[in-house]
C-alpha cells in the first residue's frame, strides 16, 4: 500500500471515530431527557388524582388531602407577575426598539437585560426580600415604593389630561401672542402635575403602608415579574426589529404619527412573536422556585390573600420532597409531573408557532 493511501485511510478512521462520538453525545443528551421525563411520568402519574386539585393538604404525616392551595397560589402569583411584568417589558421593548432605536441608551438597556436574563434567580429573591418583605423600622420600604409607583402613575394620567385640556381647549380659546407665555403655561402645568403627585404620595402613604408586613404574595409576584421583564423586553425588541423599516416609512408617508405607526403597523406585524415571547416567559417563571423561597414563602392553608404568605407549587415540591413522609414525596412527584408537562407543552407549542411564522 502506498503511503498516501495509508494516510487517507487513517484520516478516514479518525473521522469515523470522531463522528461516532458526536452521535453518541447526542444520544447521551436524548438519554438524559428520556430518563428524567420517564421518571417524572412514572412517579407522578401514580400520585395524580382529583383530590390533588380539589383538596387542601392534610396535617403533616397523615396521608390524603391535596394541593389545592399550591395550585391556586401558583396561578395567582404567576397571574400578578404577568400583570406587572408584561406591560413594563413590552413598553420598554417598544421604547428601545422604536423611539430610541440605535441610541446608546437603547444598547445599554438591551445588553443589561440580556445579562439579567441569566442572573441567578435566587439573588432576585434576596433583592425583593430586602425591598418588599423586610420591614425597615416601622415603615415597610416596599409599601413606600408601591405608593410612590401608584401616585406617579396617577399623576401621569392627571398631567396628561391637564396638558390635553390646556393645549387643545384653553390655547384655542385665548390666543397667546408671545411664545414665552406658552412656555410659562407649560411650566405651570408641569408644576401642578408634580405638586399633585407629591400631594397624592403624602395623602396615600399613611393609608396604604403597613398593610403588608412580612412574607407576602405580592413579593413573590414581583420577584417573578423581575425575571420576566428582561425576557419580554428582549423578545419585543427582537420581534420589532424584524419588522421591515419600509413598512413604517409607508405609514409615515401617509401622515401617520409615530404612535399610530407603532400601534397599528409595527405591533400588529410583530404580534405573534411578542405573544409567543410572553408565553415562553410565563413558562420560564412558572418553574422558578428560588425567588419564591423568601418572598411569597409557603402556606399550608388555602388563601387567595396576596398580603399573606402564599403557597406555590414549586416551593411545595421543595418542602415536600425534602420532608420525611412517603405521602409527601408522592405528592411532590405528582406536582412535578403537572408542572413539567405544562411547561414542556407550552414550550413546544410556542416554538412551533415561531417556526411556522418565521421559518416556514
Amino acid at each position, binding site marked *: 500500500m502506498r503511503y498516501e493511501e495509508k494516510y487517507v485511510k487513517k*484520516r*478516514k478512521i479518525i*473521522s469515523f471515530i*470522531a*463522528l461516532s462520538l*458526536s*452521535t453518541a*453525545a*447526542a444520544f447521551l*443528551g*436524548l438519554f*438524559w*431527557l428520556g430518563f*428524567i*421525563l420517564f421518571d*417524572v411520568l412514572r*412517579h407522578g402519574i401514580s400520585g395524580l388524582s382529583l383530590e390533588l386539585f380539589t383538596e387542601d393538604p392534610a396535617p403533616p404525616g397523615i396521608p390524603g388531602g391535596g394541593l389545592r392551595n399550591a395550585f391556586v397560589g401558583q396561578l395567582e402569583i404567576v397571574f400578578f407577575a404577568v400583570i406587572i411584568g408584561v*406591560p413594563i*417589558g413590552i*413598553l*420598554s421593548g*417598544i*421604547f*428601545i426598539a422604536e423611539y*430610541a432605536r440605535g441610541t446608546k441608551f437603547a444598547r445599554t*438597556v438591551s445588553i*443589561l437585560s440580556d*445579562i439579567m436574563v*441569566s*442572573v*441567578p*434567580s*435566587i*439573588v432576585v*429573591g*434576596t*433583592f425583593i426580600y*430586602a425591598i418588599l418583605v423586610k420591614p425597615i423600622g416601622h415603615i415597610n420600604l416596599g409599601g413606600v415604593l408601591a405608593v410612590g409607583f401608584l401616585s406617579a402613575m396617577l399623576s401621569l394620567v392627571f398631567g396628561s389630561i391637564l*396638558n390635553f385640556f390646556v393645549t387643545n381647549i384653553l390655547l384655542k380659546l385665548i390666543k397667546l401672542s408671545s411664545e414665552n407665555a406658552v412656555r410659562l403655561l407649560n411650566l405651570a402645568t408641569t408644576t401642578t402635575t408634580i405638586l399633585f403627585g407629591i400631594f397624592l404620595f403624602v395623602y396615600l402613604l399613611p393609608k396604604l403602608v403597613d398593610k403588608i408586613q412580612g412574607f407576602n404574595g405580592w413579593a413573590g409576584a414581583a420577584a417573578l415579574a423581575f425575571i420576566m*421583564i*428582561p425576557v419580554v*423586553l428582549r423578545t419585543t425588541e427582537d420581534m420589532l426589529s424584524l419588522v421591515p423599516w419600509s413598512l413604517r416609512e409607508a405609514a409615515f408617508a401617509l401622515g401617520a*404619527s409615530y*404612535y399610530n405607526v*407603532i400601534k397599528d403597523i409595527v405591533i400588529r406585524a410583530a404580534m405573534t412573536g411578542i405573544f409567543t415571547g410572553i408565553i415562553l416567559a410565563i413558562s420560564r417563571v412558572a*418553574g*422558578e*422556585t*428560588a425567588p419564591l*423561597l*423568601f418572598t411569597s414563602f409557603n402556606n399550608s392553608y388555602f388563601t387567595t390573600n396576596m398580603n399573606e404568605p402564599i403557597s406555590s407549587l*414549586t416551593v411545595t*415540591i421543595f418542602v415536600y*420532597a*425534602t420532608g420525611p413522609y412517603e405521602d409527601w414525596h408522592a405528592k411532590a*412527584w405528582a406536582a*412535578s409531573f403537572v408542572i413539567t408537562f405544562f*411547561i*414542556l407543552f407550552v414550550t*413546544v407549542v410556542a416554538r412551533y408557532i415561531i417556526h411556522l411564522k418565521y421559518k416556514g
Partner: protein
Amino acid sequence: MNKVKKLPLKDIFFGIISFSASFLVLTLIFSVIVVLYKESSLAIHKFGIINFIFTEEWDPVKQVFGAAAPLFGTVVITILSLTLAVPVALGIAIFLSEVSPHILKTPVGIAIEMLAAIPSIIYGMWGLFTLAPIMSEYIEPAIQKTLGQIPLIGKLFEGTPQGIDLFTASVVLSIMIIPFIASISRDSLNLTPDLMKESAYALGATKWDVIKDVMIPYAKLGIYGGIVLALGRALGETMAVAFVLGNRHEITTSLFDAAATITVTLANEFTEADSDIYLSSLFYLALILFVLSFIILAVAKLFLLKVERGYSR
C-alpha cells in the same frame, strides 16, 4: 408659527410612558447592587472583604461568618460540571450541524432544548430520588475501585459514597447546562459559510477535518460565548443543586463529601437567619454571587456580540 411641525401629543405621551418603563428597568438593575450592598454593609464592615472570602468558619451561634466554604463549593461544582458538559455539548452541536440526517435535525434540536425548559426543581427532585441512589450504589463505588486506587487522584474519591455530594451535584448541573452550550455552539457552527466547507472538501478533507480545521476555528468565539454563558448559569443555579449537596460548611478534598454552595446556603438559611449580622452575611454572599455572575455573563455577552458584529460585516 413654528416652522417645524411639533410632535403630536400622543407621541409625547406614549414616548414618556415607554421611556419611563425602560428607565425603570435600568433603575431596577442598578438598584439590585445598591440594595444588596446596603443590606450587607453590616457584614462588610465587620468581616471585611479578604477576610470574609478566606474564612472557612460559618457559625451562627458565635456569629462568625466566612464565605470560603460556599465559594469553594461553588467553584468546584461549576468547574466539574463544565468539564463534564462541554465535550458532550460540543458533540451534540457537531451532530446537529453536520452528522445528523436532515429529518432528525429539528426533532433532536427541540429535544435538546427541552432539557433547558425543564424547571431546575425537577432536576433537583430527580437527582435526589433517582440519581443519588444510583450514584451511591453503583457509580461511586466503581470509581473508588478504579480511579480511587491511584495514589494522588485517589484523595478526590475518599469516604463513604452517600450520593449526596459534590460529584452528584455536578452531574445534575452538567445535564442542565448541556443545552445552553449545545444550542449556541450549533448556531455558531451553522454560520460557517458553505463556500469555506466546500473548498476544504475539494482539497480532500474528511468530514472531521472540515469540522476540526474549518468550522470550529470559525465558530470559536460563539462556542466560547456559549461556554461562558453556561458558566454563569452554573454559578447561580440553586434548586438543582440544593437537593443533592447537603449543606455543609466545610472545605473537603473528596468529591464524595457533602458541601455547600452560595446558592444552597442562601436557600437553606435565609429564612432562618435570626440575627442582623447573620442575615447581613447572607446578603453579602448574594452580593458576591451577583457580582461574580454579572461579570461572567458580561464576558459571555461580549463574546457573542463580537460574533454578531463579525458576521454582519
